[in-house]
């Protein structure tokens, strides 16, 4: 835009020009401010790092392991990270966005129906289930199939202690778990993202292994909804997605259950899904992992470091074929 300056302009016209230029400057300022605001908002909406405040409590070092047999001598992951970085697709596929969407999740009343091939099928009220055995603190590594890991102090009961109450019969070979189906509370269950409700499974001997627990707490407190309240499975030597959350149904069955992730991508997520640095995910390596709270990478350990306790479950088995 060309603004001609005439030498013979009268004084009042020069004032007009400065007013004009001021208005122009003002308009430009407004355009710049509006665009910066819009860009900032779009940036924030596209990329939410989640609710972690940055003011993290100093993580404690591990206190105790699984009755001394699987003590983890590594630094605990901060509670803020454990409770703000979640894969819980029922609420959100954005790990930083699960906590806020799960805040109002109703966990009482809650029943867990345990049945199938058992002598004494039973519907447990969650508060009765918790009292079946004294809660134990278990500090476990959790290795996600995505390549990150945490060290989490769970509070829970060995699954075996619960299964013995219902008396699995001789035909039972597998255990099938199911998450709550409630699209009103879990918005993504209205989408076809995965086959809902979420289903997972274990071989009976895996389910009865002393390391396998049903967790109801975290850091000595009640389990937050985003971490799978009121009750979730924790199988520390398997990738995180095997540790199904917010369980309402446990069935003893004869045939190997088909888990939700296996349905979604059979060539990527197998039934066993044992942590194994030597068996890559078809799209990425599993050799290393990023521990949440650290910048560098660690080597991933076979069976997530629990080989001494669980390798015997798989003796003679081809771990590559049975991924």
């Amino acid at each position: 835009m060309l603004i001609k300056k005439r030498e013979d302009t009268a004084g009042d016209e020069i004032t007009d020009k400065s007013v004009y230029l001021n208005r122009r400057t003002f308009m430009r300022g407004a355009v710049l401010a509006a665009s910066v605001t819009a860009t900032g908002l779009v940036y924030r909406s596209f990329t939410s790092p989640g609710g972690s405040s940055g003011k993290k409590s100093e993580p404690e070092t591990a206190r105790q392991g699984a009755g001394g047999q699987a003590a983890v001598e590594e630094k605990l992951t901060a509670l803020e990270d454990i409770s703000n970085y979640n894969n819980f697709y029922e609420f959100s596929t954005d790990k930083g966005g699960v906590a806020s969407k799960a805040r109002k999740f109703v966990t009482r009343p809650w029943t867990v129906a345990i049945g199938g091939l058992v002598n004494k099928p039973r519907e447990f009220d969650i508060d009765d289930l918790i009292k079946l055995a004294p809660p134990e603190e278990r500090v476990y590594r959790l290795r996600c199939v995505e390549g990150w890991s945490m060290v989490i102090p769970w509070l829970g009961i060995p699954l075996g202690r619960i299964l013995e109450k219902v008396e699995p019969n001789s035909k039972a070979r597998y255990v099938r778990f199911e998450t709550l189906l409630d699209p009103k509370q879990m918005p993504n269950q209205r989408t076809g993202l995965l086959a809902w409700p979420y289903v997972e499974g274990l071989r009976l001997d895996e389910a009865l292994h002393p390391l396998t627990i049903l967790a109801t707490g975290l850091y000595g407190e009640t389990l937050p909804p985003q971490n799978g309240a009121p009750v979730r499975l924790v199988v520390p030597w398997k990738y995180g997605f095997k540790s199904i959350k917010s369980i309402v149904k446990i069935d003893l069955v004869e045939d190997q259950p088909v888990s939700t992730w296996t349905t979604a991508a059979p060539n990527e997520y197998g039934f066993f899904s044992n942590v194994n640095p030597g068996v890559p995910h078809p799209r990425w390596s599993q050799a290393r992992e990023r521990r949440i709270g650290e910048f560098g990478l660690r080597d991933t350990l076979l069976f997530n470091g629990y080989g001494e306790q669980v390798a015997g479950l798989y003796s003679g088995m081809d771990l590559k074929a049975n991924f």
Partner: protein
Amino acid sequence: MDDIRFAKFVILVNGLLPLVLMARDALGGNLGANPVEFIIHSTGILALVFLFLSLAVTPLRKVLLLPWLVKLRRMLGLFAFFYASVHLIAYSGFDKTFNIPAIVEDTFKRPFITLGMAGFLLLLPLAITSTNGMVKRLGGKRWRLLHRAAYVAAILGVLHFYLQVKADTRLPLLFGSVLGILLAYRILNRFLPQFTERAPARAGAPPR
């Protein structure tokens, strides 16, 4: 400052803003539980967004009859290259500790890395030939032909994104749809220009 220069200034400020916000969050420890993943993911998305914006310039200037928009395209494209570079450096450094053999192995072994790397390598000559001097040296026709590779880079970038996600493909599919529209416009423009080119209002035409 004339209007074009002001418009470029607006693009410059807005293009740098995500970087500034990210740096501020990084210094305050506000990048979430997995800052590395956040940086890699966000810069990848930013690279695609700026690449798409640069590809939207031609359709927009024709549809909106704003020919001067073309003067903003270079900066948008360079921002796409800039964020793609940060994305690649973050991946190479944080995930691969700048271990070149490991990066090469990843590139040949993992299809989504192959696609991403190919997309970046395509952007490289475009960034190098973005100066006025290079446009002159290549000649407008050859330069335009070369810079159509931006579309190929965008396709590779979207596929790279799509193959990386675990199950929620909604965002990559959205990017794919936008790219589809941009490509459809160019194809339509080529074969049926009467639908895409609005005739500029003739001087003296009666006001509508």
